């Protein structure tokens, strides 16, 4: 498969992944384009791997986590105030705060590595071993990132609603 063929077939999926990862369509566009520029230079090697798309997603994740990109991006973390505003006037309702829009705002407020781990776990359905491979960390650290992300979401929810129910854990792909 040539680079052009791959892009035409898989670009929509890469963009969706990048948008979930970055929480921002504009940044997703930036990150994907930068990753593709690099991928194009060494496409022959990438195409020879077992899973070129997984390789591209790893490149996109690394691009997103690149410190320089963050520094120059002007990203401003979502504040508590923003989260409260996203919750609207019915901010005392646990159900309301579980609304996906509010949860999306909370996910976007996570630290990049935690957000990446969360997306790889729950959007890509990767095992912890696979997440550790993408993030370049140990499996335990990958678990730690996901765990902390969930803790933070819980703390944020708990901060707005003391009655929030605990996180249930239906079957997820285990390492």
């Amino acid at each position: 498969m040539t680079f052009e063929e791959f892009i035409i077939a898989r670009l929509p999926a890469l963009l969706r992944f990048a948008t979930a990862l970055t929480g921002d369509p504009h940044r997703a566009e930036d990150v994907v384009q930068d990753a593709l520029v690099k991928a194009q230079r060494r496409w022959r090697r990438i195409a020879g791997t077992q899973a070129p798309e997984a390789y591209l997603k790893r490149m996109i994740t690394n691009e997103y986590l690149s410190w320089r990109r963050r520094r120059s991006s002007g990203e401003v973390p979502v504040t508590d105030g923003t989260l409260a505003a996203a919750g609207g006037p019915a901010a005392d309702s646990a159900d309301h705060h579980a609304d996906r829009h509010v949860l999306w705002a909370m996910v976007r407020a996570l630290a990049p590595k935690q957000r990446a781990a969360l997306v790889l776990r729950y959007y890509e359905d990767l095992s912890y071993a696979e997440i550790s491979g993408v993030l370049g960390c140990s499996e335990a650290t990958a678990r730690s990132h996901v765990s902390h992300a969930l803790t933070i979401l819980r703390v944020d929810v708990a901060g707005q609603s003391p009655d929030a129910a605990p996180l249930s854990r239906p079957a997820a792909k285990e390492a």
Partner: protein
Amino acid sequence: MITEDSIRETLEHGASQAPDPDRVLAGLPARIRTARRRRMATASAGTVAALVTLSAVVNATGLSPLDQDRNVATGGPGAGNAYGPTWLPSGMYEVVRTVSFTSGPQRYERIWSFGPMTKVGRLRPLISLTVAEDGESPLDPLPSPDGRNAAPRTPRHIPGIDKVEPSGGPDVHASDGTSPPPGTDTGTGTEQVTINGHPAVRERSSNICAIAWRPTPTQLLTVVSQDMGNDCTVASRFAQSVAKGSSAPVNDAIKVNRMPEGYRVWSTGALRTNSSGCVARLSIRPADPTADPQLPLPADQIEYGHGPLPEGGEPLTVGGRPARYYERLELDETLFQVVAIDLGDGRRLLVNKYAREPVPRTVLVEFAGQISVGEPPNCNWLRD
């Protein structure tokens, strides 16, 4: 109610906002051309930098000498936080103590383990206590040690988990009378608990337990245990024992005399290591993570301790002292650059730079010449 399904649905919802693929595809050729031009320009600049480096070996001797101005580095403990545990699992002792700075909030981090830390490797049992002084700006950007932003409000990062490994001690404990009795629930999940009268959130996930609570409206305390058994028994007992007491000072034996505009000390502290006993460490980050400083970050991290210069590298002279320059290209295209300086008496200074876009050697060498140090850390003060 937040479930894993609701998180999946939320991420799908977020992904559905992806940009138009046709538009992205249309912009790609121009992006490739720009990148190609930039690579060519960088290659030319690299040639110039290589030539300049030759003269730096000679000229660097004119830089301000290291270790002469003891006033700029206290050489000992600086500010400290007053929270600490009154109970520890048997055999555990403090191995890392750091303080992180931003424009306002400070975050103190302490780690206990069963052995000293090495720089890389697997994880071993540890307990960390983080005190975030987040004041009225709860989510101010706070770069984490890996260079990314984190917020002090919640446990965004456990120091040492990514980069250091306790070793030299037993593997897993919680066998000192704190092991859960038979029948104890060892599942995962989150629950509301109470820590010393304060509402808290406790999260269990596999081998990790995190507990967060606010003893005051402007402080967030977080206890995280890792590989300390498969439940929250140890973390909970540790958290319940946390109290305000005598201040736990933080090492500040390293001083940057001339910080480039746009940058600031992000964190300082000390950690026990296998190789050299005790290392003082200082990290540098942009003063404003959302701004784009005019100058490149000259170095990410400075380490000061005992030990010989690593093998290899190119000989240099910095501040009249023997030094070496090393660089290594990582698999992800990051270039790791190091200037190591022999300070005499078995002491050494490592000035590290991790970057996708490296700085010329001269920049790193000149920056290294702007560093002063106090007495070498001994980490004895880590044992309270």
